[in-house]
């Protein structure tokens, strides 16, 4: 019919052909039969896997590994991961899950491969007991992840700022400055009196989280939720005790008010605007990344005030949507093996959750050059096996967000400690009900 001149027909054909080709191109990432398999690993922060990938790829020439999200913020990573899981598409073949979020993913285990079906049971001895149990569903029938690291606690400090304030700079002497949090506040007051132009600590939220996990770990072993999943923010003495200690710190004007993980926080690292920061093992990699090479040798690590504690630590899981589950499981097993955990520790500092790795001379004798050759192995690994984990309930993340925000409002002078406590309790209840 004359409606379509030949030229137009040709154009239509061309468009159609292009469309077809493009669609075909989209399917191009599917490997050809027997060809190399590309495994995507989704991480946040610094997991320290780059060299391990190289090693794994050298041993498995048919596997190519791509890591996404390196250096990213957990707050941006977790919603993305949840969306991918909900959509049934988009997640990597191996995904990192932080312990605070694990509970929510564990409530819907159908999204993940049951690692017990893939010979994970025999690996149980490779993990600290509580770390293994954390990833196990309530009925004990599904294991959704293999543990990577635990967050043994320390206190990182800038020795140059300590020197300027006339405080001791040797890590052993610094540790002796603060056996308790009250001593930490007293040291902070001395530091503040010296007018170095820097704050004593970064902001209220990190220190609060450290104290609450430590206090709860040393007491009943739970903080916002009890082990029967009742919200106990207002009735748990451990939470209130941590709150009061944090308020003492704020009351003494020691905080720099740099909201943790914000751009100002990163700038404050670069400009040496605070002297101490609560330092779970994984934080060492974050400090190095934020403060940059210029601050090498200016940071050091001392004991945390109070007694031990665990903050954070992650797991590697394989989503059911992965097209290469078998290969992904193998990779996850390799990365969480003693060897993988030692490699990660050496690269970026996350402390192994593998008891054999914790005893390994490679960990025990390791020093961190960035932190003035601090014996990180001794500092972190020593307490790791006796770590007292804290139980996390179903809406842990949402509740923690509310409580931390309340702490922050006091830090910024928007609320009095008592008003903020009321906010924390009420908002936590509201968040838990959502």
């Amino acid at each position, binding site marked *: 019919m004359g409606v379509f001149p030949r030229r137009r027909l040709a154009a239509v054909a061309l468009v159609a052909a292009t469309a077809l080709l493009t669609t075909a191109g989209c399917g191009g990432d599917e490997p050809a039969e027997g060809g190399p398999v590309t495994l995507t690993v989704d991480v946040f922060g610094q997991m320290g896997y780059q060299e391990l990938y190289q090693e794994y790829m050298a041993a498995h020439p048919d596997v190519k590994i791509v890591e996404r999200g390196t250096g990213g913020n957990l707050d941006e990573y977790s*919603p993305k991961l*949840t969306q991918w*899981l909900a959509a049934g598409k988009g997640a990597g073949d191996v995904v990192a899950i932080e312990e605070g979020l694990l509970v929510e993913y564990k409530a*819907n285990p159908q*999204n993940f491969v049951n690692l017990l079906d893939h010979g994970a049971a025999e690996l149980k001895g490779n993990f600290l007991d509580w770390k293994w149990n954390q990833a196990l569903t309530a009925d004990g029938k599904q294991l959704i992840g293999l543990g990577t690291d635990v967050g043994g606690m320390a206190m990182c400090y800038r020795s140059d700022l300590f020197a300027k304030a006339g405080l001791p700079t040797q890590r052993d002497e610094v540790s002796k400055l603060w056996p308790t949090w009250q001593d930490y506040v007293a040291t902070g007051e001395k530091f503040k009196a010296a007018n170095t132009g820097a704050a004593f600590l970064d902001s209220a939220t990190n220190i609060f989280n450290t104290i609450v996990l430590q206090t709860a770990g040393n007491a009943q072993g739970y903080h916002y939720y009890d082990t029967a999943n009742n919200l106990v923010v207002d009735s748990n003495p451990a939470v209130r005790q941590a709150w009061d200690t944090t308020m003492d710190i704020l009351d003494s004007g020691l905080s720099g008010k740099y909201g943790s*993980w*914000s751009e100002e926080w990163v700038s404050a690292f670069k400009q040496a605007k605070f002297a101490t920061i609560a330092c779970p093992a994984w934080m060492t990699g974050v400090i190095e990344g934020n403060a940059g090479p210029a601050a090498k040798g200016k940071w050091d690590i001392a004991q945390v005030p109070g007694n031990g504690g665990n903050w954070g630590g992650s797991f590697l899981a394989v989503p059911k949507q992965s097209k290469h589950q078998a290969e992904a499981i193998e990779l996850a097993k390799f990365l969480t093996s003693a060897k993988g955990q030692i490699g990660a520790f050496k690269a970026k500092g996350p402390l192994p959750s593998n008891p054999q790795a914790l005893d390994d001379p490679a960990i025990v004798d390791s020093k961190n050059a960035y932190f003035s050759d601090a014996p990180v192995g001794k500092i972190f690994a020593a307490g790791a096996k006796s770590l007292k984990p804290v139980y996390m309930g179903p809406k842990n993340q949402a509740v923690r967000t509310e409580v*931390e*925000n309340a702490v922050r409002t006091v830090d910024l002078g928007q609320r009095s400690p008592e008003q903020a406590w009321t906010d924390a309790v009420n908002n936590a209840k509201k968040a838990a009900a959502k």
Partner: protein
Amino acid sequence: MAVQLDALPPVTPTERSTARPPRRYRLSRLDDKYSPYLYIAPFFLLFGVFGAYPLAYTFWVSLHDWDLLAAEHPFVGGENYTRLLADPDFWHSVVNTLGIFVISTVPQLFAALWLASLLNRRLRARTTWRMAVLVPNVTSTAAVAIVFGVLFGRQFGMINWLLDLVGVDAIDWKSNRFASWVAISAMVDWRWTGYNALIFLAAMQAIPRDLYESAAIDGASRARQFWKITVPLLKPTIIFAVIVSTIGGLQLFTEPRMFHSGTNPIRGGPLRESQTMTMYMFENAFAPHYNFGYGSAVAWLLFALIAIVAAINVVILRRLGGTDGPTRVRRPRKERTR
């Protein structure tokens, strides 16, 4: 939107002369009759897939207790809506949204009008100026928001440094409610004033010159000409700009979201100082609540709010312009998107 801005009479295919033999032209007549529908079909198809369906589906989701990850989503009827209407954080976000909308849109449209009238004069390198006002619009919103986020930093920000130079105390732009509204409005205006100015300029150029000439002969000043000739004749364009700004302003997300960094930026500050409705929707539908049903209910109320505010806008503008119907002026068709 129920507002018809420039309704033109629909073009009906005209019947060809019946003197021609019908058989030969049957195809052609079918073509005449149906192909117009075919031509507009792509829009409706796309709208159906990407507009109407998500709208309806969102409503369906909003009637359920829809945990994003859960396998089952029980039906709860209007419960999400009743809870939402009694949720102070939601109303807080509504006030934030309206506040930011007002303090960004009102000065923005006046500035755009003023810029357009400047650009409409005889200027040297006129095209350069006209292109220049659009440049902020071409930059990525996220980049703008990050740069402004740094400029408005409490401790290291340039704005506070400048304020310090003139002896004003540092303002905590991110955790002071009104200050954060101002900072975000500055971002929005920086980006959209030039765009609106170009739209107004295009409409101004369609105003016949002789109106101004005769007004000048009658001794009307420039300002009087502007208010008595330009503004009334721009009314349809102004309505268009206001409605589009309303839609954009009430859906504001990227600017306030990127303005905050650190933990939980989606809250828009520790006390939700600049959390807009879309951010509240996001907070509920995604991290940390993953309550898709509740988030969907927020989306629907946002839709209702936009419709209400747009209707109010139109009523006010109708009143302002006296009794004449809007004069038809050519307007750009490009949709403003954020």
